[in-house]
């Protein structure tokens, strides 16, 4: 009885080890093989099944967008630096700091608009169905993520108001 139970336990353990070993090895191999590409546009090809010609157009659009995005990011970084300087050591928000905040917000919204414009151009260069799907997905991943944060914060604030009222 004890011997049989021991054999059964060993068999179950060996089976589990076999399954786990092959699972981790296969996962590692797949991650290495499919993730070794350094092309940042690989996802577009995988997700939207784009042809070589379409991918060439994607690269063209992407390469045209990156310098504009980089320039905008540099402006935002510079403005953020100015804001940090205006806020350094202050106990109140000065008029200058408020001005910098407004300018930073304007720059960010311009950058966001430029980014959304790029998404629209990319979606238009895709077959219609994939283009629609791309646009929805990109809005979800960029602007949508921001909205989720705001929504969760407003819900949190609402709860706090309710607690405050009681």
């Amino acid at each position, binding site marked *: 009885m004890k011997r*049989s139970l021991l054999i059964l336990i060993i068999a179950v353990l060996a089976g589990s080890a*076999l*399954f786990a070993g092959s699972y981790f090895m296969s996962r590692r191999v797949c991650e290495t093989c*499919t993730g070794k590409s350094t092309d940042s546009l690989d996802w577009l090809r995988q997700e939207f099944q784009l042809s070589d010609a379409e991918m060439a157009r994607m690269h063209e659009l992407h390469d045209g967008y990156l310098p504009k995005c980089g320039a905008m990011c540099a402006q935002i970084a510079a403005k953020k630096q100015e804001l940090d300087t205006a806020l350094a050591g202050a106990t109140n928000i000065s008029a200058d700091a408020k001005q910098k905040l407004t300018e930073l917000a304007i720059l960010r919204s311009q950058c966001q608009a430029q*980014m959304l414009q790029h998404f629209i151009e990319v979606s238009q260069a895709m077959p219609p169905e994939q283009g629609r799907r791309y646009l929805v997905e*990109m809005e979800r991943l*960029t602007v949508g993520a921001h909205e989720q944060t705001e929504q969760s914060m407003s819900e949190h604030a609402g709860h706090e108001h309710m607690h405050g009222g009681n």
Partner: protein
Amino acid sequence: MEKENSNPNDEKLSALLREARSTPSLPPRFQEGVWRRIEESEIPATARMNWLEAMVSWALRPKFALTAAVVLVAAGSLAGAREGNHAAHQDAQTRYVTSVAPNSLR
């Protein structure tokens, strides 16, 4: 003196008490019932042992062991490949989003 006087009385008293005590009679087929209960309590243990031993001897057959090993390796590989592909796909998506959307806008 006192001991000699009291002993015969005690023996008489004990004999009277033995006679007065009634011995309850056993229910009908008592012995048969006891044996049946003993047998019933032994049956599940024996059955469990047989079941376990049968399972172990079945699992130790080379044909079954080999089939089980192949099935486990195949299932593990498939699950791992699926998970690996999903992770790689997620990485590719993150790489693309990072390249087009600066962190400050997400």
